[in-house]
Structure formats: structure tokens, C-alpha cells
């Protein structure tokens, strides 16, 4: 699922991903299109899965708000509380929720494919 989301964000395989959550890392370890990085800076995209990761992302992105890596959240709360995250994928009421924020995508000059258009919203 994340592979297609990253592709929708215009990232080409192999996508260099930074995630500090052990569970997520163990999942991505076997993905052929994703390479896990050990540092925030070397990644194309950062998956924000915890408050700590969110804090780190805020700090690091402060240095380069429009450049790489792109921030992507795994919780609505992280998307809402961090302006720098471009979208999120999470579960709500037993349903998968994918959404992208248009302004934040524009900031990174990202245009998601048409089929993801229904998941792009103007504001939360």
C-alpha cells in the first residue's frame, strides 16, 4: 500500500525511506521498492508514526521546509499538528483513510495522479 502511495507522490523506486518505528521497519525491510535509511537526511520520504518522529521531523524540516525528504503521517493527528506533512494514511472506524493536502503538495510541487484526486483536500 505504501509503495503505491509513495509512487503517487512522485517518488521513484527505490524509494529511500526513513522510519524509526521498529514494527514499520520490519515490514518495509522486505519491500523490493523501498530502501530503509538510517538517517533523516538521506531519505526521500519520512514516515511519521510517533510523537518523537513528529518532533524530529519538525526540527529537521525547519532547515529545509520545501526540499526532501517529504513527510507522510500514519495518523490524522500528526497530519493536523504538523504543517509539513503532505498527507496521511490511517484507519478510522474500521476503514482505511488516505488523504493529501493540496497546499502542502503544491509546496513540494507534487501532483498526484488523477485517480488519487478524490483523496486530495483543501483543508482539514
Amino acid at each position, binding site marked *: 500500500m505504501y509503495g503505491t502511495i509513495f509512487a503517487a507522490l512522485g517518488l521513484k523506486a527505490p524509494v529511500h525511506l526513513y522510519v524509526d518505528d521498529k514494527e514499520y521497519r520490519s515490514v518495509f525491510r522486505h519491500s523490493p521498492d523501498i530502501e530503509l535509511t538510517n538517517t533523516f537526511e538521506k531519505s526521500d520520504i519520512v514516515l511519521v508514526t510517533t510523537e518523537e518522529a513528529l518532533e524530529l521531523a519538525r526540527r529537521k524540516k525547519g532547515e529545509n521546509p520545501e526540499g526532501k525528504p517529504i513527510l507522510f503521517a500514519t495518523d490524522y493527528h500528526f497530519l493536523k499538528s504538523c504543517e509539513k506533512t503532505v498527507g496521511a494514511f490511517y*484507519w*478510522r472506524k474500521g*476503514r482505511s483513510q488516505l*488523504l493529501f493536502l493540496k497546499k502542502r503538495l503544491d509546496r513540494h510541487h507534487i501532483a498526484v495522479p488523477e485517480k488519487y484526486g478524490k*483523496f486530495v483536500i483543501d483543508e482539514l
Partner: protein
Amino acid sequence: MKQLYFNRIIFGIIGLLILFVLYLQYAIIENTEKIKKDEIQKSENYAQKIAEYLQAKTDNHMEASLTKSPKLRTQLNELLQALLTEKYQYIFVLKKDTKGHYRFLLDGSKEDAVEYKTLFFPQSSLFDKVYAERKMGIAKQQEGTQKIWLSLLYPIVEANQTEALLVVDLSEEYADYLNNFNSPLKMLVGLMQVFLVVSMVLLGLMAYRYYKFRQSVLNDVLTGAHTKLYLEEFFNRNRLDDYNAILIDMDEFKEINEKYSYDAGDVIIKEFTQAILAELSLESKLIRTGGTEFFIVVPKKEISIGVLAQKLFKRLQEKKYLIDNDVIFLTISMSAMIIPSGTSSLQNIQRILDEKLLEVKSRGKNDFIVLDLQMIDNLRYRDINYIKEALEEKRVSCLYQPIVHTQTKQIVKYEALVRLVDKEDSNKLITPDHFLKIIKGTTQYIKMSKLVLKEVFSSLHAFKDIKLSINLDLDDLYNNDMMKLIAKHLYKNREVADRLTFEILEYNEIVDYDKVMLIFQQLKAYGSKVAIDDFGSGYANYSYLIHLDIDIIKIDGNLISQLHTSAQRTKIVLESIRNLAEKFGCKLVAEFVSDEMLYTQIKALGIEYAQGYYLGEPKPIEAYEKFIKV
């Protein structure tokens, strides 16, 4: 046949069980679906009630009321929370914003409750449909959802506009609970299915083994011809009288086995079988009934029995067999017959053909006989059931053949000869050669003897001046039941017993003369006489005269008829017998005196008494007694 019915019953029961199990499975599925349907119906009513309550609490202006009053939101969220049971996973209320995105108005979740107007992507187009059409809908679990069995979407409508959408999610866990509601029954059905499958496999295996076993029992291993058991089963399924029958036996086959070995004999039997089969249609059946004996049944509609018998006889007679560079020809003996309509006893047919085959063999073998219609007509008299019925109905009669004084031609005695009266034609009398062998040694034989004794003694009482003789086999006298019967009748009729003669026939050599002597003494207890029948033939020899107390000697008819062909030599023998009789003090009777010439010769030889067609045919006693009186 019994086995066949048994198999049918077993397979029938298994079939019914399969149907029952299938029905049970169907009923369980139907029942589970019905339970689910009922639960959904209940949930629909539940959703409707919640929606009505929410509308009432928000004065039919839900969004405005909730936006205005966070307290009311809290109250209603708590209410929805309270309504959540294990049956329901989520209960929440959505509303579309101006951009068409769904946002939460209320959320009854305890743990992951969302803020007011949080975005929500429902993952089902049905949400939009229900929202637009304002009719309740049910969204089933689909990709991108978890823990949800189905979602009830209930539109909250105000002024013909959808004000909000109440979503009631039924939990997957509850669906599992409903699915497993009938699980004990499902398990039982599953076990039954396993049992049935195993039973079917075992039955199939048994059927296969039974089939193989039947094949080995119904077909002869050496020749491939059928066995007797097959024949019996065949006529359990088919009418016997739709077929004609042939019995074939290879002549002198023992010599082949002895000369060329049994293996060579087997080869010949195989070739012989093939030669027969080549002449038969597929509908005909060839049965190996003995070592070299074959029984054939041919459908009547196919070919005339005479033609087939002729063809088969010729074919088998001409057949050559090559063994050890020797070319061998074999002769056969054969009997054939049309099986008469209404015949049901295969054993009778086999016995008749067997008797006729023996006749052919006794005439010198290498021949065949086809039974003519008269012979076949008489076959019914050989049916044990026919004889039984005749005896039950007392259709037994005696004819009396006179024994005359040779010099005066006066009747001195009558020989009683038993006859059965035909069932359809009471004037038709059936001679003993048709039925005596069949009932010999059975209780029917005793029954017949009883009837004969009764009639004979009755005649002796009715005609005070006559003397009678009856025939007995020595074997009969060895039989305790028969002896008791005779003794009882002799005692009962002791005043006329001295006018009765027992003509004793003997087919086996007497071993114990003392025993026979004792029997003769019993017969003579009330003055009856004992005659030795067919003297001069077989075992009826001179030893009798030495060991037994004989009153009368009846010279064998064959010996008398020799006077036609070898008059001088026969006269010498007859004179010798006459002298013996004189010496032993026995009266002498010549049998089979069928013409005047024989009568003259017998008279000239000084044989005191004579009997035969020339002197009187067997007739009812009244016929002769009337004649005498005239």
C-alpha cells in the same frame, strides 16, 4: 436374487442418507441466513429508533444544534456510546460539507472517538447513494475495511433534505457468532459426510470385490463358459420357456486324458468350447455342467432346435484336434428339446435331457436325440409338483392285467398296475415310467403305496373270488415306513390277505439273505404269497431259489420274447427254469406273452401260467370280472 435385493437396499439407504445430509446442510445454511436476516432487520429498527431520537433531541436541525451546543454533542456522543453493544462495532453520524466530504457530527466510539467535523472517507459509494436518495442502505464488508461485517446507513432527513447520515456498523465478530450459531449441527453434518464418504468408498470396494468374486463363481476358469450357478441366476431373471435346451457330452474323454495327459485334455476341452460358441449367438448361453458335459440354452425365436442340434452335432463331429502331432476326432452324444410353455423347473429339464443323453449313450454313443412333442407333452408328468398334486387329490388308479392258466386260459389272478390319472383328462392314465423314478425314496412314494394298497385290498373285498398281485422293490421292504404300512394293511385285511401276492423286483444284489428272509416271513404272515419277478434277468438269479422261500417265479419277459428269434435255445433255458420251479415247488408264470405264437410255445413247454397283452391288457377290474360272469 436375495443378494441383489440386499445390495439395492444398502445402496438405497446410503442414497437416502446422502439426501438427508444434503438437506440438513441446506437447512443449516438457510437457518443461519435467516438468523442473520432477522438480526439485520432488528438492527434496521434499532437504527431508525436512534435516528428518530437524535432528530428529536436536535429539534430537526442537527448540524445547527450540535454546532451551537458542545454540551449536547457530548450528551449525544455518550448516548451513542451507551448503545454500543458487542453486536455493534461503531455508531456515528456524518454530514457532507460544502466540498462533498463527509465529516463527523457524532461518534459513539469509546476509545478512538474523533473530534467534531473530522474528515471521513467512507470507502463505499453506497454512502453517497443513500445520502442522495434518502433511503436506507446496507453496505457489506469490502476491501479497505476492518472488523466490520456490514454497515447500516440510515439517512436523517429534514424537509426532504438529508440532514445527516447515521452509520451503524455491525461487527465482524457478531457475524462470526451468528455463523457459528449452528456449529454443533454443522460438525455433526460434517461427521456424517465423512462417514458417508467412507461408507461409499467401502461399499464401492465391497461391490468391486463382490463383482470379481461373482465373475470367478459364474464363469468356468478353464473354458470361459458359464457355471451352473450362472444358469440358475440367469433363469431367475429370464423365463425358462423362452428358450430351448441342449445337453452335450464328449464320448470316451477319459481315454484322451489317459493317453495324452490331463493338460492335453484341457486344451481339447477349451477348443471344444470355442467350437460350440462359434455356432451360438450372443443371446445363447453355454454352461459347463460337468467335466465334459455342456448345457446350452438358445432363445426360441432364433433357430429351430432340430436344425441347431443337427448343425452343432455335425460341427463337433467334424472338429479335429491336434495333440502331439496326432490328429484326433472326438464323438459326442447329445440330447435336445424345446422347453414347453409354462415350464418353470430347470432341474426337470436338466434331468430329462440327462436321461435322454444316457439313452443315446446306451445305444452306442456318437448320436443325438431331439425330443418330440409327445415326449415333451409327457414331461409334465415328471414334475414332482404335478405328482404331488395328483397324490394329494388321490388321482391314483390301478389297472389289472390277468394272469391265466395256460391250458384253460382261465384267469387265476390279476397283477395290479398303478397309474396316475391326468389332471385335465380323467380318461388319460399315466404309466409309472413317467413318475416312479421321480418319487422313489420320497414320502410321496409311501403315500402312493398307501393308496395302491388301499385300492388293492378294496378290490379283494369287493370281488370275493379274485386273487391279486402287486409289485414291490426289495429296496421298499428295507424301508421301515413301508414295511409298517404293509404290515398294517395286511393285519387290517387279514381275512383276504391270502389272496394277495407280492411280486418282488430286485435291482441290486442281495447281500443279507437272512434279512430278506425275515421280510418275506412278515409278508407271508397272513397267507400272502411271494413271487420273484423278472427271473432270469439281472440279479434275479438262482441264488434266490437257494436262500429264499419263493412261491412263484415270474420269468423275465425279455427271455420269453427270445422265443421269436432263438426259439430252440430259449426253449432249453425255459425248460430248465420249469424243471427248477417244479423241484422247488414254485408256480411258474411267463410274462410278456404278446402273441399267439408265444402263447402256443409257452403252453407247449408246460409253463403253467402266462401273462401278456395277448391274454389280456391292463384294464379296470370291473372289465374282467364282468367278462368272466358272462
